[in-house]
């Protein structure tokens, strides 16, 4: 944004939206990271904190929406300004969903805690969350400088997360077949893994929105997809 508006108050309003989005991004990141830590360490207190943080994120999303409506009503924005505001609404909604997925993961900590998480699986989920968080962090950086090129490259990388998720899925099925007592914790872990995979999808959505905000057109080509978990079958040896 090289030039500024004749109405300086309009610039302030847009800056306010951008700042709230960045704050939401920071909180969503933290929630996901803490939810996974709570899961891996069976830390129910930390899980509780994540659940209560979600309220803050929900409120922030509503506030961004309300503010955006007021700006549209009062300023009748067009072109890049309009895309900026509509983009903010979409990104806030993606970040709010990321928070929900973190909260859902945190809620499962108690159910999984009793049987504990097998070391190997915990590593897998941790690694998956590192990939998703890295993607989220990068997309928030791209948001800060509105780079269309970088937004495109983040979008192209979602497949790494999808592939990792498919391998965890396969592993969980194997555990369940080995011992029926694993079914309850593994089912919860399966949802946790799915939650984290979905976070990657939201980061990709955000990348697409940023691309649109910067250029006014949708990113080129199909979204890469390597989530083959929906066709995975594991048969008993």
């Amino acid at each position: 944004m090289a030039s500024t508006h004749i109405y300086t108050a309009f610039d302030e309003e847009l800056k306010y939206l951008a700042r709230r989005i960045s704050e939401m991004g920071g909180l969503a990141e933290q929630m996901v990271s803490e939810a996974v830590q709570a899961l891996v360490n069976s830390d129910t207190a930390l899980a509780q904190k994540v659940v209560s943080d979600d309220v803050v994120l929900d409120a922030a999303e509503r506030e961004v929406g309300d503010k955006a409506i007021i700006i549209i009503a009062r300023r009748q924005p067009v072109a890049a300004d309009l895309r900026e505001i509509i983009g903010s609404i979409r990104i806030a909604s993606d970040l709010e969903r990321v928070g929900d997925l973190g909260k859902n993961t945190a809620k499962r900590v108690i159910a999984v805690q009793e049987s504990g998480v097998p070391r190997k699986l915990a590593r897998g989920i941790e690694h998956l969350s590192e990939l998703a968080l890295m993607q989220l962090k990068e997309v928030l950086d791209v948001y800060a400088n509105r780079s269309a090129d970088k937004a495109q490259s983040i979008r192209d990388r979602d497949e790494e997360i999808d592939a990792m998720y498919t391998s965890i899925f396969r592993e969980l099925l194997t555990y369940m077949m080995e011992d029926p007592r694993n079914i309850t914790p593994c089912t919860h872990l399966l949802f946790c893994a799915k939650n984290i995979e979905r976070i990657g999808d939201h980061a990709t959505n955000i990348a697409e929105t940023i691309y649109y905000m910067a250029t006014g057109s949708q990113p080129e080509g199909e979204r890469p997809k390597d989530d083959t978990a929906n066709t995975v079958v594991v048969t008993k040896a």
Partner: protein
Amino acid sequence: MNMIAETKLEPKQVQTMQNSFKMLGRNVTVHYGAKQALFDVNLAIRQNTVTALIGPSGCGKSTFLRCLNRMNDTIDNCRVGGEITLEGQDIYDPSIDVVELRARVGMVFQKPNPFPKSIYENVAYGPRIHGLARSKVDFDQIVETSLIKAGLWNEVKDRLHEAGTGLSGGQQQRLCIARAVAVSPEVILMDEPCSALDPIATAKVEELIHELRSNYTIVIVTHSMQQAARVSQRTAMFHLGQLVEENDTDKIFTNPDESRTQDYIMGRFG
């Protein structure tokens, strides 16, 4: 992109464009004395389309509009160069009858300017001087249909013989539109037709423009970006006497190609 921005066009291409657009301005320049107001403007006006001309004041919107029905001829030191065609015919050709041209390309001005006569006479005046009707029945018919087309009939049908100047500002402007419509023009030029009107009267005129589009080709100059966005299908952005870009209004108001357009419509400093 502006398809006629190309400087080198084959005569055959020009011919095709002249036939497919209602009006076509090529390399239009205008001087007021020594001062140049328009620089090589290439702009096509599409049939049954509302084309909005936008840009900061003094950029040449009205000047270009006035070229389209030779209203600039009435300004002493004004010289027009380049070529403007109406359905392929050069409107600056010496053989053109300017009065007839202005019947085909009508104009509505910024300030409603009804004649100091009755509502009926305001509308009947044009058809009378152009010999479009003879009998009272014919005139009555033209007056009624024109007022209906201008969305004014129901408001004035019981007082057709009262003075046009007694109407409200918005009604006066619609009366002027009825007057323009009465001579069955093909193109209607409007120069900031709502700038003297309140929001409700403005909305009525805008709704009228929307309806007129199916029968006429409309070119409107407006300093209200929102108005251009609401009423037009094509938007042409002028700056310092040049055409910056012309495109679908949807495109101009979501993602214009030129930064000068973007800065102007978003209300930014360039």
